[in-house]
């Protein structure tokens, strides 16, 4: 698929730039106000497939164009730009607002919170447009939430492809789940297989 940038593509492969989709944790991707639960996963694919609509697309509920997409990554990434392919006939989103590293955002939060960055969007049926980010703010993104408050007049909002361009670092930004602090070690808390299944050493 020839990319329609105004540079010659023989030098580099455009699709490799849009490879951040490989770092998306697809099982944890979720969307609010989607008409078919789970359909949001189909919009994250390779750049060459961005116009391949056979897998399904993300659609909002009838009469309600708002969409909220939560995208976690498997490691921290730096996002340079975002590309969205929307639907025809006013089913494309008209605005995009993003939030970084916040979990559990719902519509009321999204509407009241200050977004990290906002864009006015235009119809981008062939996926050639990309929206640049303020790179300094997108340096270590563990998850990103995209909020599409409105579309360009259609009944529903349809999104066929969401692409991220940037770099992946190997760092993982994980919330520390459980930490146990011990003032004094208690051997019964540290049962190892050797101890508990009748080895020579037996700790009571």
């Amino acid at each position, binding site marked *: 698929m020839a990319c329609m940038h105004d540079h010659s593509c023989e030098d580099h492969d455009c699709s490799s730039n849009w490879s951040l989709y490989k770092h998306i944790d697809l099982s944890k991707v979720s969307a*609010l*106000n989607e008409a078919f*639960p789970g359909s949001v996963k189909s919009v994250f694919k390779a750049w060459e497939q961005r116009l391949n609509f056979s897998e399904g697309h993300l659609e909002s*509920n009838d009469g*309600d164009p708002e969409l909220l997409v939560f995208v976690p990554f498997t490691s921290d990434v730096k996002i340079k730009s975002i590309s969205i392919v929307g639907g025809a006939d006013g089913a494309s989103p008209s605005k995009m607002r993003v939030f970084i590293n916040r979990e559990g955002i*719902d*519509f009321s939060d999204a509407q009241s919170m200050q977004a990290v960055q906002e864009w006015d969007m235009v119809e981008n049926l062939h996926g050639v447009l990309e929206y640049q980010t303020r790179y300094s703010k997108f340096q270590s993104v563990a998850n990103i939430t995209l909020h599409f408050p409105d579309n360009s007049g259609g009944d529903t909002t349809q999104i066929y492809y969401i692409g991220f361009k940037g770099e992946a670092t190997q760092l993982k930004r994980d919330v520390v789940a459980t930490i146990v602090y011990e003032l004094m070690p208690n051997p019964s808390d540290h049962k190892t297989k050797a101890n508990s299944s009748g080895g020579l050493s037996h700790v009571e």
Partner: protein
Amino acid sequence: MVLEATMICVDNSEWMRNGDYAPNRFQAQADAVNLICGAKTQSNPENTVGVLTMAGKGVRVLVTPTSDLGKILACMHGLEVGGEMDLAAGIQVAQLALKHRQNKKQQQRIIVFAGSPIKHDKKLLEMIGRKLKKNSVALDIVDFGEEDDGKPEKLEAVLASVNSNDTSHIVRVPAGPNALSDVLINTPIFTGDGEGGSGFAAAAAAAAAGGVSGFDFGVDPNLDPELALALRVSMEEERARQEAAAKKAAEEAAKEKGGEQQPTSQDTAMTEGPSASAAEANEKKDDLMDDENALLQRALEMSMDGTTSSHDMRDTDMSEAAADDPNLQLALQLSVQEGAKEGNDMSKLLADQSFVSSILSTLPGVDPNDPSVKDLLASVQNQSEVGFVHCFELSMDLCGVEHLEFYYLVVMGKISKVVLRRRNVLL
């Protein structure tokens, strides 16, 4: 095992004083709430449940979503009934409470008990429903109590606007003999979406059906499946025996009058003998073998006195070992058969050394080539009651009394039935 945060909206309006659900609507609701909380926390330990009341002075959150069952049960206690229910506000506050749940990974669900008339109009309710759907909150509605004109339509409309992918449900519970919670147990509200019933729901259903102790025969099938099975089987066997005895009595009364009356009375006496022993077998503890021995001896003497050929002693007790062992299965099948079959079959079988020795070989600690066993077989074939007692004692010696489970071969004198019984002796 869905990870879920649930808010239960309880209707404590004036309409809940009505007694058409036993003991009154509010109590029935409280029981149902307790059961739901239990079911949710059991299906996944990280589930949380919260409770709020919709009537009274206003919507009040009693418990924010928590996995602590005690807190929830305590807050249901001592609630006052009064006021009017505000369904819209109740659902919205529930949604807010769910929004601020601690674990954002939990799915959101609201369960509403709608017992009193709904004063909101359909449009408002549908809007609320759509908002719930947008924020992917599931809604379960329990429609009970007042049967207002517009109430079912309004509730159906709410459900239609909320429902995405069948995660939301509505249950209509009419007033009647069944308790509210019993009706709810079989609904998807309890069983979850297509999970087919958690263990809790199944146990609760058994409790509802079983009666006093909560389980059949007071034994939890989960804790001790073998014992529960043995008890259930003895019960069935007992019932079958009594039916057969009744049938026999009817037959024989029809066939031969007068003279046969004595044997039939003995017949019933005999069936009572083994039934007494079977009843003893149902005791869980302290079934001394001496008692059993004495009873069986008495039964045997009775069988010696009995003249007619075709009564059956149904001392059968189908152990689950029978399922595995074809020999045992055969023996049990034969022993459960109707009395029409003569005892000859059994004596023929007994005469078959190989069959008996194969059965004996399945007994732990019994060596068919042991001379004492061979003596036993010989004595058995002579069909004397002495053989029975010997057999009993022998098997005890062979198996060792210290074994918690042992097998003994019961051979009933003239009737010549081979029965294998497995007993749990609880020391």
